[in-house]
């Protein structure tokens, strides 16, 4: 998107020279009033969206002298402190949780994007016996809720792969996703065949075509798939909670659930734990959101 102001005559008028503003004072006032109305709506929705997190942040900063339950509720801590954070960090290996989450999410994201991008090429651009069969098999797995597979996957983890209670147990089952394969297939289908044929005439093999022609063209889609996979993996809870029980192996959501049982009624500490886990993923998302929204829009258009 270009700069929004450049597209909107009303905003452009606001920024224009004084004489022009005087030329249509009434219209400008009406526009301002209308915009003020929209800003009120936008801000109200934003408050509802962000308030639970804001409340957590404020609670996490409250000292022992600040009431956590009072009428009216105390919004700003009277005696702000970081002790709650210290207490959480002392009793739970939160930094280890972070490290585990990063290892899992980075492995899952990188390998899943690679595996999906590989599989999408023949499904989008090659003709071979069995293509339809693979395609419909993948389509079918998309419908099945992952939770249905957890009982056999649990047995596999314990008896066959022997990775129960270790990070590979949450990495391996997430390495392929039919959804990502479909998104990448859509992206590849948008690449003109002439381009591939020209490369073949020049003697390029399929692997080189994939790596040197297709992958660079669909980079925005890969970015969207990667961001989406990263956030999903980062927040994944049910399967990791079945697999990871040792504190040194927990990912953040699993650790947060452990935090809840440990500090059951110590809301200041729970709030500190939640704030610590939410802030990094928010920062990450703020940095990557441009690519995500663009890639999402592109993927859904196709």
């Amino acid at each position, binding site marked *: 998107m270009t700069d*929004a*102001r450049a*597209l*909107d005559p009303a905003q452009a008028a606001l920024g224009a020279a004084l004489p022009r503003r005087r030329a249509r004072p009434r219209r400008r006032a009406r526009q301002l009033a209308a915009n003020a109305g*929209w800003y009120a709506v*936008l*801000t109200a*929705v934003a408050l509802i*969206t962000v308030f*639970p997190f804001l*409340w957590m942040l404020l*609670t996490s900063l409250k000292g022992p002298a600040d009431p956590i*339950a*009072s009428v*009216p*509720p105390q919004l700003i801590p009277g005696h702000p402190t970081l002790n709650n954070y210290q207490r959480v960090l002392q009793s739970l290996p939160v930094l280890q949780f972070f490290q585990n989450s990063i290892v899992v999410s980075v492995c899952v994201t990188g390998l899943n994007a690679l*595996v999906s991008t*590989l599989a999408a*090429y*023949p499904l989008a*651009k*090659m003709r*071979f016996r069995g293509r339809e069969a*693979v395609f419909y*098999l993948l389509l079918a*797995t998309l*419908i*099945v809720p992952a*939770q*249905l*597979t*957890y*009982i056999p996957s*649990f*047995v*596999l983890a*314990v008896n066959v792969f022997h990775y129960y209670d270790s990070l590979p147990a949450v990495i391996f*089952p997430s*390495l*392929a996703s*039919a959804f990502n*394969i479909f998104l990448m297939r859509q992206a590849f289908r948008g690449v003109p065949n002439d381009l591939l044929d020209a490369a073949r005439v020049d003697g390029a093999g399929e692997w080189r075509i994939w790596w040197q022609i297709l992958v660079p063209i669909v980079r925005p889609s890969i970015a969207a798939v990667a961001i989406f996979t990263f956030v999903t993996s980062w*927040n994944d*809870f*049910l399967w990791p909670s079945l697999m990871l029980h040792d504190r040194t192996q927990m990912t953040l959501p699993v650790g*947060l*659930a452990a935090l*809840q049982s440990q500090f059951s009624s110590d*809301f200041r500490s*729970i*709030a500190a734990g*939640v704030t610590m886990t939410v802030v990094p*993923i928010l920062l990450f*998302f703020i940095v990557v*959101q441009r690519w995500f*929204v663009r890639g*999402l*829009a592109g993927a*859904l*258009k196709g």
Partner: protein
Amino acid sequence: MTTRFHATPWLFLAPSVALIGVFVVYPILAVVYYSFTDYDIVRPPVWIGLDNFIKVFGDETFWLALTHSFIYLIVTPIIIALSVALAIVVNRKLRGIQIYRALYFVPAVSGSIAIGLSWRWLFDRNGFINGILQTLGVIKEPIQWLAEPGLVLPIAMLLTIWAGIGYYSVIFLAGLQNIPEELYDAARIDGANDLQKHWHVSLPGLRPQIVFVAVISSLAALKVFDEIYVLTGRTGGILDSGVTMVFYLWRQAFQLHHAGYAAAIAIVLLAITLVFSIVNVRLLERGQGDA
């Protein structure tokens, strides 16, 4: 299109096919087998025929869970209505709109456990909601929101809606930006006001996205777990008032170690999901025909 490839396509497909085979296809086949057995994950399964299914259909908690999961589907139309409205609002070219769009996305990336804990705290007996209501004089005594059997499910649904709107409105925003401006101009010339313009141009234009969101949000609603787990402190709520299909599956399989019985529940859930998906695919095809 090129023809006459032999090994190459399969080499590209091999990692995905192997992984999906081991972690999706095999488990589905195994779950079908387990559903006909008495199995506790530790000892080998013992074939018992249809006993699990007979037991499932006579199990009151199962019916309760099924009912709750269907009630949960109400979130889908509400999410669609609210996120379409929000998308229309944030599609305005206002200064600073990007910041608002990013703020609305916060719940979508924060993770269900963090969100669930923050909501649990809001709705606690000593929480903010009670504090505000008491300050305003609406209630005299604090309410035990999450200990009221009738309130657990509505609060979880409210959480799902709240967390979903920002995410789904991004999808609708992408759809809105694909609608040609001329259609709005034509509507304006025909004398349509703002509301009529969106009713007659935006809604039909968003049809593919609406169908897509209907599919993914209703499938998500059918398998809700995390919200219930956190809000009820892994109990499922008083009198099982928050127990959903997947929660019940989890409890039977991993709390009570009735893996065979849980597998039968899984098969029923799979059947429901399949019927649901067939209906959804029909809708999708119809949507494509129109567009």
